[in-house]
């Protein structure tokens, strides 16, 4: 039996953080940040910090959805393609003269619809999530290419678009809009996980799907919903992406797929489901963002970024595994 940590107090807080699943990512984040602050004076400046936030906000939005999916014990491999397809829908709607708000709505609906397809096939047709989302990864990508014969849609000159561009690049007080937007999404995502029956069901299903089913949790509906949420984040991410880049590209950014899943896993959300949360994902995303920023500041070729984030992913999951083994051994000894 473990001794109960005293509630409150700084020591208790530190102990809680060190015992948490994202302790490794947090410590790494602090170490890398300290290192960069010393050797790259530009690193610790406000514009650079906000640059990190902005350039990772599309990934972060997607990572929130991916966190939900991974907690439920499944994986969505198709969110990158869904984002691309939604972006193309958004671009084409704008070019066709649709008012900005309606076009944004259209992009979000497109994302929801693609998520619904995934969720329906996984939850109701009972096809393996891996097969479904590997298939739709390809299907959604193909759709994005087909709709405009494989060419990008430039929305820069579309009247009304500049409002969105200015908005996503703008500030609310001293804070960039994207930072505020991400914080709001983060708080909603965390709140839903913690305080709603849906959120708790997600952990239950990820931990033991049969136990969840036998105790009256509507497993099919929850799984459908989780993929719809993944689609929703793809829709939102596509709007932010097009808003920033002023162009909708039909090609999926494979690096985005890796970064997002890496952020979720580095943040301590277990691939096996039932564990983790969006705070870990936030830390994981910041860590990857800071490393990437450090490479850029140090003048390392961006071609190296993939190798580094991939290695970090493998290393962190390996270390997490060791931690799990150690914890299990400690428990057996106690008994």
């Amino acid at each position, binding site marked *: *039996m*473990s*001794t*109960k940590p005293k509630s409150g107090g700084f020591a208790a807080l530190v102990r809680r953080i060190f015992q948490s699943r994202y302790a490794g990512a947090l410590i790494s984040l602090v170490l890398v940040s300290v290192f960069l602050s010393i050797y790259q004076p530009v690193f610790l400046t406000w514009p650079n910090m906000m640059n990190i936030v902005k350039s990772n906000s599309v990934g972060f939005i997607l990572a929130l959805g991916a966190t939900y999916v991974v907690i439920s014990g499944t994986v969505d491999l198709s969110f990158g393609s869904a984002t691309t397809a939604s972006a193309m829908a958004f671009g084409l709607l704008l070019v066709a003269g649709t008012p900005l708000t309606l076009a944004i709505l259209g992009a979000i609906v497109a994302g929801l619809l693609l998520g619904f397809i995934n969720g329906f096939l996984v939850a109701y047709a009972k096809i393996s999530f891996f097969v479904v989302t590997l298939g739709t990864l390809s299907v959604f990508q193909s759709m994005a290419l087909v709709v405009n014969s494989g060419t990008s849609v430039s929305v820069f000159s579309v009247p009304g678009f500049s409002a969105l561009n200015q908005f996503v690049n703008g500030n609310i007080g001293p804070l960039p809009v994207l930072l505020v937007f991400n914080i709001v999404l983060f708080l909603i995502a965390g709140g839903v996980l913690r*305080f*709603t*029956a*849906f959120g*708790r*069901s997600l*952990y*239950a299903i990820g*931990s*033991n799907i*049969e*136990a*969840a*089913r*036998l*105790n*009256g*949790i*509507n497993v099919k509906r929850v799984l459908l919903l989780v993929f719809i949420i993944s689609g929703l984040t793809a829709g939102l991410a596509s709007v932010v992406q097009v808003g920033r880049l002023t162009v909708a590209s039909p090609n999926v950014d494979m690096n985005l797929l890796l970064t997002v899943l890496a952020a979720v896993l580095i943040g301590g959300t*277990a691939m096996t489901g*039932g*564990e983790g949360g969006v705070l870990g994902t936030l830390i994981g995303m910041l860590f990857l963002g800071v490393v990437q920023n450090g490479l850029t500041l140090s003048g390392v070729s961006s071609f190296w970024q993939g190798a580094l984030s991939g290695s970090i992913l493998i290393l962190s999951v390996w270390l997490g595994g060791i931690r799990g083994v150690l914890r299990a051994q400690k*428990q*057996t000894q*106690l*008994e």
Partner: protein
Amino acid sequence: MKQIPKETAAVLVEVKGISKGFPGVKALSGVDLTIRAGEVHALTGENGSGKSTLSKVIAGMHRPDEGTIRIDGEICELETPADAIARGIVMISQELTLAPTLTVAENIFMGRLPKSSWGKIDWSRLRADAVQVLDRLGVHVDPNALVSDLSIELQQEIEIARALSTDARLLILDEATSSLSEAATKRLLELVVQERDKGMAVLMITHRMPEIYAVSSVATVLRDGCLISTVPIPQTSEEELVRLMVGRELGDYYSKQDIAPGELVLDVKALAAENGTFAPTDLVLRRGEILGLAGLAGSGKSEFAQALGGAITARGQVQVAGKPMALGDPRATIRAGVGYVPDDRKGCAILPVRNIAENFAMAWMDRLTRNGLISLRRQKSEVASAIQDYGVVTASADTLISTLSGGNQQKIVLGRIVRRQPDILVLNEPTRGVDVGAKTEIYKMLQRAAKEGAGIIVISSELPEILGISDRIAVFFEGRIVAEFDGPTADEEAIAHAAVAGVKRHPQPTVTKETEV
């Protein structure tokens, strides 16, 4: 019967002072066992008595915490099953260990395929060898058939064929007959006798009396992980053996109270599993009544419980408190007022990576939620009082459930259902893998629920438990209820015979006479 006299036969395996603990349970403490060549040694005891653990220690699957194993007088450290097999110890367990996508011959000689030059597999020799082993067993099956195409029973025989083909000196049968039909059981026992006479030692783990008396010459009884006695067979009577197995006064242990049965609360008509594991079955249950369902593994009793709990699809009519209940849907079952506790705690009941509070709250989601939001404050108070009421030993409600002992886990699993005060409780092996202390706690929970007006169905493989808690006992055999007994007056032997032979009053234990050569 030309059995080698016990005193002169060479000691093959000698086990001394073996102890083995698992998280939260002491499975074996200081057990001795001597197995001689040419002897069939029965190892018996109630479920949870440690007989399977002991056999796994001898077969190299578990390493003992204390004690020694001597083989041919020499101390051995068996670290893996391969070590045991190398010394001629082969175990056949209830669970099959065949590769279903390979052929019969490949399975029999798995890891030992005959090779010709250049390391090429000698298929014709493989087939010939397989035919030879199968003939010895009297099994007629094509050695080229895929194992997945065979019946479970034939698969079990393939498993036995594999053991025989290894020139085993000690064959351990861990309830190997539990999934076999009568004819196949007879064949297996004949084979045991045949191999015994050739000098093989057999350790037979079973609690079926007819089998023990048919082939064994000595029986060792375990209870709660301790050696109770090693006695000669057939000099020791069946009654004496049962007394050694059960060993305690059953009266107060089960906290049995007299509760007058109330109105009819469950009416089951022609309920049958879609997967055919049990035939259309009728059953009624009154409020305050505890009905025990007995039967062997595979008799359909467990699937009957699963069907009532909505865990598997089924057809038929089930009325709960006068209202029809939809089948095959756990949500409908819960709404109808049925609380189901599955037998596989790890696989179907707990969320291993979550804490006690969440494991409890999972079954209370509907009552703790308003407008989709969970009241964490209500959750906290419900969990705290459940922990107190059911005597769960834990530091706090935030403790990971998988760090608790089996008994404390089960108190949570059972408590979250009982506390909802359902009209009917269906409990599938509620005390499996649970220590004695937690058992008494669980029996008290059942009595309290019965007193509060629930109708309770308990499925159990432990006859003493069924006898101790039930007002009425029904026995499943090959997918049917074949006998019913009044709880307080039922006698263990009659129930056991109904479970083994499918009839209420046994004429003759059919296996016995014919297998003795």
